[in-house]
């Protein structure tokens, strides 16, 4: 069961911000300090800064996501060699690792108990093994690289297999085509949801009054897609 935590609740009051001269929460101190240092010196932000930056959301989230990608990019080469897979596959597995890690950071599944570096190493290693497994079982075409196991985590073990089979029976090509025709706003909102953005963040981005409005809009998009899907069968 995934426990979704509100990152804002974990923010502690921090010391005086050197650049703003006021008392600010830690993540703001980190963000301003880090952004200034990174801009001036071209240094890598620390893992703590990256996690705080991604959790804070808003416009800086993408910035820190890119920094996270850059920071451990060196893994691609060693992954390719250690697992004996093509560098291109290792590179895609690495991108997938970063997106998974970002989602785990935003949803609270990454709780910071282990170091971010160790966490990324572990996920990347599993993704590389997945590449080999999917190659040998020829399931690459159906689901490409997205892990069904991850999506099914909240479901009890006994029902996971049945659901996985039902998912495999869906016309994934058709869903992809319909998503391209569903309308720009729906596409954007559903994409944000799939990336782990909360309804609160979606509401902020689109000026909805409440999180509930964001959820209703998102689910209407999903229902619209479902109707289109059924009509096309």
């Amino acid at each position, binding site marked *: 069961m995934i426990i979704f935590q509100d990152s804002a609740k974990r923010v502690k009051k921090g010391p005086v911000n050197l650049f703003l001269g006021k008392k600010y929460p830690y993540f703001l101190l980190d963000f301003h300090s880090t952004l200034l240092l990174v801009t001036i010196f071209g240094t890598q932000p620390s893992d703590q800064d990256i996690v705080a930056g991604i959790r804070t959301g808003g416009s800086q989230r993408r910035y820190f996501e890119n920094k996270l990608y850059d920071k451990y990019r060196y893994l691609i080469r*060693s992954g390719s060699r250690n697992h004996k897979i093509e560098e291109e596959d290792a590179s895609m597995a690495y991108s997938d690792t970063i*997106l998974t890690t970002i989602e785990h950071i935003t949803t609270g599944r990454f709780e910071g108990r282990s170091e971010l570096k160790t966490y990324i190493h572990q996920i990347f290693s599993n993704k590389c093994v997945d590449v080999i497994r999917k190659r040998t079982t020829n399931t690459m075409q159906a689901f490409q690289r997205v892990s*069904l196991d991850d999506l099914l985590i909240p*479901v009890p073990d006994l029902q996971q297999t*049945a659901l996985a089979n039902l998912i495999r029976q869906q016309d*994934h090509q058709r869903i992809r085509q319909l998503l391209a025709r569903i309308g720009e706003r729906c596409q954007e909102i559903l994409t944000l949801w799939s990336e782990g953005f909360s309804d609160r963040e979606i509401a902020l981005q689109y000026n909805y009054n409440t999180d509930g409005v964001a959820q209703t809009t998102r689910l209407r998009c*999903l229902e619209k897609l479902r109707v289109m899907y059924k009509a096309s069968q």
Partner: protein
Amino acid sequence: MYETIDDYFEGRLSATEHEAFERKLAQDKALADEVAFYLSTKAALKEANLQKRHAEWTRQRSAQPLRWQWASGIAAAIGLLVVAWYFMTPSNLTLQEYAEVYIEEDLTRLNTHMDTANDSLQTGIDYYNHQKYQEALPIFNRLAAGNPSAKAYEYEGLAQLQLKNYDAAIAIFEQMAADSELLENRGKFYAALAYLKKGDTDTAQRLLKEVIAQNLAGKAPAEQWLNTIK
């Protein structure tokens, strides 16, 4: 219907509702179909997003011109003068971390020599690749017999490095570095790793700079690491 499904997957149902949902899911085929569609859509979106972000990340990095690296280096140097005090906290931890990850990722597995007629070397490599450095060490030591040009000598140094015998490893790597007959000389780079593990960051940095200046093996990671800690 999607509201309950969404609340279930977003962890917003109460314990009772959660349990009731799972019970219904096990019995109701229509609900299971909707859940499958919900998750399939999410999977399709994730896949599309992965393709998009991967293309962005790889395009940006491959298109990044070299001069930007120089520009960021110069900017870093200027910035360093302006508020050097801010950087009084040592940044060598990052460099040591890089070395640790490099050793863990790149040096825990030696390439097997399929064409080698030397069974002993292969045995040593097998020991090494199974983290049995203590067993591998005497084999490499015997095969190399102090010859810096021998592959076994490099492996002997790496086994010493893994065993945390840094001084012994450094002695071997420095001899390797001084050997002009080695075509791809990793001695200096490995010595830098050993110095980093030993805690002598200044010497390690000097060696890494020499690796870059002399275009030796290990130049690419050395550049990456030094750029990072600037």
